[in-house]
């Protein structure tokens, strides 16, 4: 292996690692606030990529109808849970059906105008992001008091259902979208594609924005408070369900963004997201699902392991990445004195 190949592999690893870092951040965020291990995050990534690719190819994305289905289910669930309450119905319907309606209307209006990749990307975010809070309402909010394990089983159930829905709505074909930028930057022996620059800068901007959100805004502080102690947060007036929905919305946005970013990099199928999401998990687990910086560092490491593994033993790429979780868990296990939780 010469220096050029090394550099290319590192570049590849860092770019992929940046995506995993975004996902790992969203997983840590959702886990700390709601204790849900968000397995279906991968589906949101894939659905967003497929949506972007469809818009890019001048077709109406099937995810519009999926979003309407999920929004409808969320509204139905909300109405059912609140069937004995008198008020709040209008607000509930606005919250559950409003964002899907806006997304559908804007897409139907803007998509045929072919305004370019920027609009396609924005519409994809608009379509996929509201799926996450809808899932929260449908599946997880009613289980708010359950154990981490029950929530995890539910998350796997949601993943399973979303996978099936993905096949119904998107079909089995894979797609690849065109990139944001065809520019190439030559740096010594490296040729850095514009898409890589996009990914890295978006990741950095998003991390900075998240840091600002958690550090400086009241909403961010409320989320942090819920993460530390949900009961205590509720006592000072932060609604747990609202905090959970907000965390899911942020995660949905990050997942959708990741999907738009990878769509031009690789061929995406309806079930591609799970493996991508799982790599985010490997990274998140390194930080014990609670530490942001460790998760980001680990995500870059996962990207590097993957890129070097695909060079040396390409068919073993996934095997190596996912087996790497065992030593990680072993180290965590040795580092922990006693059993960690008492639920």
């Amino acid at each position, binding site marked *: 292996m010469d220096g050029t190949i090394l550099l290319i592999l590192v570049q590849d690893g860092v770019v992929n690692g940046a995506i995993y870092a975004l996902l790992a951040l969203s997983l840590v965020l959702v886990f700390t606030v709601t204790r849900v291990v968000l397995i279906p995050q991968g589906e949101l990534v894939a659905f967003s990529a497929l949506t972007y690719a469809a818009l890019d190819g001048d077709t109406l994305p099937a995810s519009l109808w999926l979003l309407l289905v999920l929004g409808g289910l969320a509204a139905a669930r909300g109405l059912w849970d609140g069937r004995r309450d008198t008020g709040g119905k209008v607000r509930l319907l606005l919250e559950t059906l409003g964002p899907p309606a806006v997304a559908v209307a804007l897409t139907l209006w803007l998509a045929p105008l072919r305004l370019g990749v920027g609009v396609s990307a924005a519409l994809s975010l608009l379509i996929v992001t509201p799926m996450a809070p809808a899932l929260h309402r449908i599946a997880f909010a*009613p289980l708010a008091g*359950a*154990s981490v*394990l029950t929530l995890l*089983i539910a998350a796997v159930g949601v993943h399973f259902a979303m996978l099936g829905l993905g096949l119904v709505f998107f079909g089995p074909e894979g797609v690849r979208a065109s990139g944001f930028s065809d520019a190439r930057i030559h740096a010594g022996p490296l040729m850095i594609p514009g898409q890589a620059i996009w990914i890295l800068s978006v990741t950095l901007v998003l991390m900075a924005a998240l840091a600002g959100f958690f550090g400086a805004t009241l909403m961010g502080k409320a989320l942090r408070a819920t993460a530390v102690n949900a009961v205590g947060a509720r006592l000072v007036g932060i609604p747990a369900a609202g905090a959970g929905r907000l965390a899911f919305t942020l995660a949905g946005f990050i997942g959708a963004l990741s999907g738009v970013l990878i769509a031009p990099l690789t061929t995406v199928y309806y079930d591609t997201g799970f493996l991508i999401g799982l790599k985010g998990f490997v990274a998140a687990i390194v930080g014990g699902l609670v530490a942001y910086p460790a998760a980001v560092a680990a995500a870059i490491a996962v990207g590097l392991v993957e890129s070097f593994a695909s060079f040396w033993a390409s068919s073993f790429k996934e095997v190596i990445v996912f087996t790497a979780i065992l030593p990680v868990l072993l180290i965590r*296990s040795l580092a*922990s004195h006693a*059993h960690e939780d008492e639920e």
Partner: protein
Amino acid sequence: MSRLLWLIGGLAWLLVAQFPAVPAFWIGLANIVGISAIVALGLVVLTGVGGMTSFGQASFMGFGAYTTAILTTGYGLSPWLTLPLSIAASLAAALVIGAVTLRLSGHYLALGTIAWSVSLFYLAGILDVTGRYDGIPAIPPVSLFGLSLADPRRFFVVIWVCVGLAVLATQNLLDSRVGRAIRALRGGALAGASCGAPPIRARMLAFLYAAALAGLAGWLYAHLQRAVNPTPFGLPASIQYLLMAVLGGAGQIGGALLGAALVTLVNDRLQTLLPYLIGAQGNFETIVFGGLMVLVLQTAPDGIWPQLARLARRSPAGPTPTIPDAPALSHRDLPSPGTRLLDVSGLTRRFGGLVAVNDLAFTVNAGEIVGLIGPNGAGKSTSFNLLTGVDRADAGRIVFRGQDLTGSDAPAIARHGIARSFQHVKLVADMSVIENVALGAHLRGKAGALAALLRLDRAEEARLFAEAARQLDRVGLLADAHRPAGSLALGRQRIVEIARALCLDPVLLLLDEPAAGLRHAEKQQLAALLRRLRDPQSAGGGVSILLVEHDMDFVMGLTDRLVVMDFGEKLAEGTPGAVRANPKVIEAYLGGVA
């Protein structure tokens, strides 16, 4: 009687299938149900009883299936010879994953097994030895006394005999000394640990047992299908097995069978019906199953089986429990009254900046009842946790009967004869009172998992249960022996915890607020009981007691000495009378004189 009925029913089930009039299609489905039920039974023990979850059961099944496939096709081994090897392969895999994840919180096992099944799925698809994605064809059928069981109708018998054996084994395992340790995991791991049953070992046992059943199912699968490939051992299959356990009722043996049958039948119907109805391609069953899983967790977290069981059973009032006649267990020698038992010095525990216990020193002598009192937040319960190995001190020494116990874990401390009750009761709510108490006698039995599975532990179990009944009688709760522990009033549950602690045959008893939640008369009974326990002349007496208690009347009348704590430090020590007169104590409790 009912056992005979089950046997006849089982034989009839095996026989009916042999009639050619029963369509082969139904036999095929029943075979899948049987194999799935065996996997789901493992999950009953792991998830429903042990409170852990694995998304790797299908890949453990794969270990069993591939082991027999490789050895029978490549090396010509007899399938009967590969059966133990298949199970051993699953066990070995589970041992590795278990060693890595079982010390961590429950969701790490789940996440670890997800990653691991994905990894193994790809590995089986790459390696030559597993035949890549094509798998291994032409696996020889099982034959018995020269009779080939290649026909699924004949193999049906093998599968369902295995189901029967797995049901029996699971029942036996759960109704045993090690089984109680597994069931205690759900009452909070601390309960088992304080009785000397290390939770990590119970976790590992449950995980290995589930993997062994999956390995058996894999062997059956390989010889039923006569071919293996990676697909049936992937993550989606594991998710379906978990769905079976959750849907049927994760804590119930019947639930595993019911769940396996429901999911298999629904799956079959969905795969044939839905594409017609919707007229499109897709894995519609995953949508239904995923949704169903969430819905069951939301609406009936205990699954369907308990609902059915509730309809079927009107529990009749059983006979009044008596103390069974079984040879008594051996007792340890108690130290003679007055000798130094417990010597605590310099005990310190910090939580970040907060010093919960600071330089605490006190002693307990044999035959004494010592009270540890102090206002809320004084560090009493933290001290208890340090003494019983639940928490680790930052500094200080704990010497018990001349042996340094500093830094020992809870099971080790239990082995030295220190038993405890908890401020927040830690009983297994759905286990009977007497089973909860028998958990306390864990260290006084030896029977392991193998003896339990083969029912070789009956004599020892009888002795453990006789001891449990004796201790229940002693605390006055023998009449409640067969009620679920969770159905007792909270005050009584505390007394059950005392009986459980007594089953350890303790030298020193640590009681955390034993009188809380008791009525006045019950408190007097408790005080009388504790005096009898301490009295070396009474049967089974001579136990020393250290107790935390808020009820001052109770403490003052009962204890020989008091240690008063405030803000983590020892404020005073002495007889109840001296402590009551101590101005510092008065100030701590009543505030300074204005």
